[in-house]
C-alpha cells in the first residue's frame, strides 16, 4: 500500500465522523491506496468508538453505504476501516 492524496471522500468521512463524536478534534482520517481501492482509515478517541460504530454496527454500516455511493459517483472504489 502507498500513501494517496487526501480525497474529497476522506474529507466527507471526516465531516460525518466529527458530527458523531464527543471529541471532534481527535478525529483523524488517513488514506492509502491498495491498487484500485482507496482505503480510508478513521481514527477517533477511544471513548468515541461506540459513536462511530453504533448499536449493532448501524452507524458504521451507514457510513459505509454513504462512502460506497460517493466513491461510485466518482468512478472510484473505497473502503472504510474504523481503527480501534
Amino acid at each position, binding site marked *: 500500500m502507498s500513501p494517496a492524496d487526501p480525497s*474529497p471522500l476522506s474529507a466527507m468521512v471526516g465531516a460525518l465522523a466529527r458530527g458523531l463524536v464527543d471529541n471532534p478534534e481527535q478525529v483523524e482520517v488517513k488514506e492509502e491506496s491498495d491498487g484500485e481501492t482507496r482505503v480510508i482509515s478513521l481514527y477517533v478517541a477511544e471513548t468515541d468508538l461506540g459513536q462511530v460504530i453504533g448499536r449493532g454496527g448501524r452507524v458504521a454500516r451507514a*457510513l459505509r*453505504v454513504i462512502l460506497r455511493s460517493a466513491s461510485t*459517483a466518482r468512478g472510484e472504489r473505497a473502503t472504510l476501516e474504523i481503527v480501534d
Partner: protein
Amino acid sequence: MGASEVTAEGPGAAAVARTLDAVVEGMGLEATVVVSPGPDDTDIDATVEGEGLSPLIGRGGETIDALQYLLGQIASRAEGGSRRRVSLDADGYRARRAAALEALADQAAREAVEHGEEIELDAMTPHDRRIVHMALKDRPEVVTRSEGEEPRRRIIVEPAE
C-alpha cells in the same frame, strides 16, 4: 459549492447543513442544501436541490436513509443530546418514491385477492416498508407482514382470512 440556505435555528440545524455540504462535496454533486424547521419545533427538514442526485439517494433509497439516520444522530449530539428528528429529501425523491410504493402496494393487494395467495415484495428499507404497511392498513381484504432480516427484510401481502 457549499451554497446552503438555513432557515432553521440552533446548533442542530447548523450541524446538519455543514455535514450535508460535506457530503454533497464528497459525492462531487452540484447542488444546494436547504435546512428548514420541520413540522414540530424540534424537527429539522433538510433537502438537497439539484440535478443528478442519484448517488445521494442510492439503490432503493439506502443512501438517503443512511444519511438521514446519521444526520439525526449528528443533530441530536449538536443539541447536547436532546433528540432531533431529521427528515432528508433530495429533489422531491420522497414524494415520488411514496407514490410508486403506494401503487405497488395497491397492485400487490389486488393480486393477492385475485389469486388467493401471498404476494412477496422485494426487500425494502424500513422507511419504505412503513409506507407500504400504511397504504394497506385500511384495506380489510388483505393483511401485511414483514419477513426476513435486514437488509433483505420484505413485505408479504396476503388475503385476509
